[in-house]
């Protein structure tokens, strides 16, 4: 089958006329179908050259790089999560790509097909032409997005097919095997990949500090707003995750990048964002525990694995309550007011903002100052732990590392990418050790707390307590193991090579 794109806006009428002039054609009854393209909010399938298309109850996964159909399935209701899929190629292909994210309908299309049979003197069909017209149902239901002409040969009639191909080419039709899905999205004005939770801001070294930080904060506000709607609808756990990352970054910027804004609003918004961060803590924690159910079970001996289920039933109940609380919080007047005022504060030409000490400092200088300062703190705290090995110092170092990491990420565009990547990689490894230690600590404590609080509803609940106890023991053992790995992780970060790199990048230099 060959695919052609017609010359500028010729519709099926013109193709019909063109073909009728040179061949005998017979029109088939036109058909109309609704297609829906499904993908995650952050376009994970698209980024892997995959298109998941629904027609009625039939779902097909296409790989447009390999130009093949990966798998097809029938569902009465649109599958949202990988765990809704039956075992098979579809599931194994999607699992590593979409993880815990939900599939959402992203584009609704109406496809009209006008088919024609090309006939010879015996009125035998020797080739088939299909004219497809695509319409975007939500965006512009009456304006065609795309026209495609498909030419299908019939076995044994190659000459006749070639004749039709030549007619089309002579009339300006371009043969193309460009994939359909990206073409449709582009025509509908949708740019997949435009959403990312990664920091994508390009700062210039001579930008004023206040301008640069405002850009960063605005981008984080955008991320918060984009995810809010989906959190309220409880689509999947990642919307809240991305939202909270944006909130944490906002808080970090307000605290760590000092004197860029006047003191009063800075303090006020720090408080506001502390409030915003806090009201979703419980929900996020519960999401994480529920996602970890299989992982936890695998850490138990086989004879206890089923017993722990009542714990997750209980957590699921609590989670439902927490979700409602968050949805209510996001709709509350207080929250809406904070966001409105924050947005206003970040607007250009806002006079309130000009009186800060470092507002007009070139951003490169400020970035270097802050990063260097926090790097030194990380080193100092790390060495302290090597001496006294105290848990609370480990927690304090973890927080310090986080501050450093956010700062480096904020200002990454000011430095050579490979060098920044190197530092971040090293820092990530140290953070991984500290993060695991913190996770185990928190989980131990939380599970003990839940075990004591969980209502006892018969023997299964009692059995669950035993399983929880066993799990807590396992977590504790792991915690101690991770703690013993700290020295190696820290030495690796604090080595001479990284020290030199940090000095090279972040020692503040004054241009005279």
């Amino acid at each position, binding site marked *: 089958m060959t695919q052609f794109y017609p010359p500028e806006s010729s519709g099926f009428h013109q193709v019909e006329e063109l073909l009728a002039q040179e061949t005998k054609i017979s029109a088939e009854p036109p058909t109309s179908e609704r297609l829906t393209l499904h993908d995650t909010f952050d376009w994970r399938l698209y980024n892997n050259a995959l298109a998941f298309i629904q027609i009625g109850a039939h779902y097909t996964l296409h790989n447009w790089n390999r130009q093949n159909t990966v798998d097809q399935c029938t569902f009465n209701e649109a599958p949202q999560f990988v765990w809704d899929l039956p075992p098979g190629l579809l599931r194994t292909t999607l699992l590593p790509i979409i993880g815990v994210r939900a599939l959402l309908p992203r584009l609704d299309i109406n496809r009209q097909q006008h088919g024609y*049979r090309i006939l010879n003197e*015996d*009125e*035998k*069909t020797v080739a088939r032409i299909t004219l497809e017209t695509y319409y975007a149902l939500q965006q512009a239901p009456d304006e065609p997005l795309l026209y495609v002409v498909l030419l299908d040969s*019939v*076995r*044994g*009639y190659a000459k006749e097919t070639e004749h039709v191909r030549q007619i089309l080419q002579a009339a300006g039709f371009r043969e193309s095997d460009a994939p359909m899905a990206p073409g449709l999205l582009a025509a509908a004005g949708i740019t997949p990949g435009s959403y990312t939770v990664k920091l994508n801001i390009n700062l210039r070294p001579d930008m004023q500090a206040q301008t640069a930080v405002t850009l960063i904060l605005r981008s984080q506000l955008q991320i918060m707003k984009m995810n809010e709607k989906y959190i309220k609808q409880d689509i999947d756990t990642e919307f809240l995750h991305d939202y909270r990352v944006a909130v944490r970054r906002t808080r970090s910027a307000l605290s760590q990048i000092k004197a860029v804004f006047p003191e009063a609003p800075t303090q006020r918004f720090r408080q506001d964002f502390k409030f915003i961060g806090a009201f979703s803590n419980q929900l996020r924690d519960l999401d994480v525990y529920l996602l970890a159910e299989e992982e936890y079970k695998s850490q138990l001996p086989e004879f206890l694995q089923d017993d722990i289920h009542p714990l997750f039933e209980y957590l699921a109940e609590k989670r439902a309550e927490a979700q409602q609380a968050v949805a209510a919080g996001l709709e509350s007047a207080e929250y809406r007011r904070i966001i409105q005022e924050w947005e206003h504060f970040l607007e250009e030409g806002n006079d309130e903002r000009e009186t800060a000490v470092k507002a007009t400092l070139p951003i490169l200088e400020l970035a270097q100052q802050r990063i260097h300062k926090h790097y030194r703190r990380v080193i100092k705290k790390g060495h302290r732990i090597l001496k006294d090995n105290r848990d609370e110092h480990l927690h304090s170092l973890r927080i310090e590392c986080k501050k450093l990491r956010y700062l480096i990420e904020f200002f990454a565009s000011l430095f050579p990418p490979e060098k920044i990547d190197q530092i971040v990689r090293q820092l990530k490894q140290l953070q991984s050790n500290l993060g695991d230690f913190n996770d185990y600590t928190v989980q131990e404590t939380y599970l003990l707390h839940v075990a004591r609080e969980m209502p006892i509803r018969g023997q299964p609940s009692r059995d669950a307590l035993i399983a929880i106890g066993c799990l807590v023991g396992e977590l504790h053992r792991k915690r101690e193991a991770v703690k013993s790995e700290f020295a190696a992780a820290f030495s690796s970060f604090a080595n001479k090579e990284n020290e030199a790199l940090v000095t090279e990048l972040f020692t503040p230099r004054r241009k005279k």
Partner: protein
Amino acid sequence: MTIIAIYSNKGGVGKTTTAVNLAYLAAQSGSPTLLCDLDPQSSATFHFRVQPKIKKKARGLATPGQAIEDSIKGSDYANLDILPADFSHRNLDLSFYDQKKPTTRLRKALKPLTKVYETIFLDCPPTINILAENIFNAADYLLVPIIPTTLSLRAHMQLLDFLRDNGYKQKNLLTFLSMVDRRKKLHRELSEAMPQKLKGALPVSIPYLSQVEQMGIRREPVLAFAPHSDAAEAYELLWDELQKKWET
């Protein structure tokens, strides 16, 4: 992969209409199907609007090869291809006769096609010579339409004798009643008697219907232009009974 020969040693019994309609049904069920027209009269070919020509090198059908495959034409229907008849088929028995192992040449020639198609139908001319023996050796099933008359029955007995005398097994020979005119007393009586007398008789009786004659004018299988007609139902029943035989 199954090869079914629609065969009779008598002419005008409804072989071609049977081949055309059964091939259509097989294709509709999703099975990649080939209808191979072995009759120089090329009626089956005509019904699908294909020109009765094959590549020069393929004439004689004695050897497998690309030329045979290159002669295949797609029908207007999904999953159904046609290997057209050629007037040169009038000498098929001679071309086989000249070769080594002359009665298995057709089976050999069809072998590459068995990898591509799930079902192959052979529309056969009414001969009982070397071509017929090639057909008996190539086909998994011999499907024989019989008109319920005395002469038809007599001709069928001759066929059974021939098969027995030449060492051909009869177990895959299936028969059904064709062109049955219930207004005729002879047809009615023999319609009842024959299935009981013949081994391999399918409980199917295709009536003589003008719809079937229409096929030659419309050049389409009756199931395509009159899918709910009596004729269509009769062929669907035949197809069902045939499939039941395969499953046992």
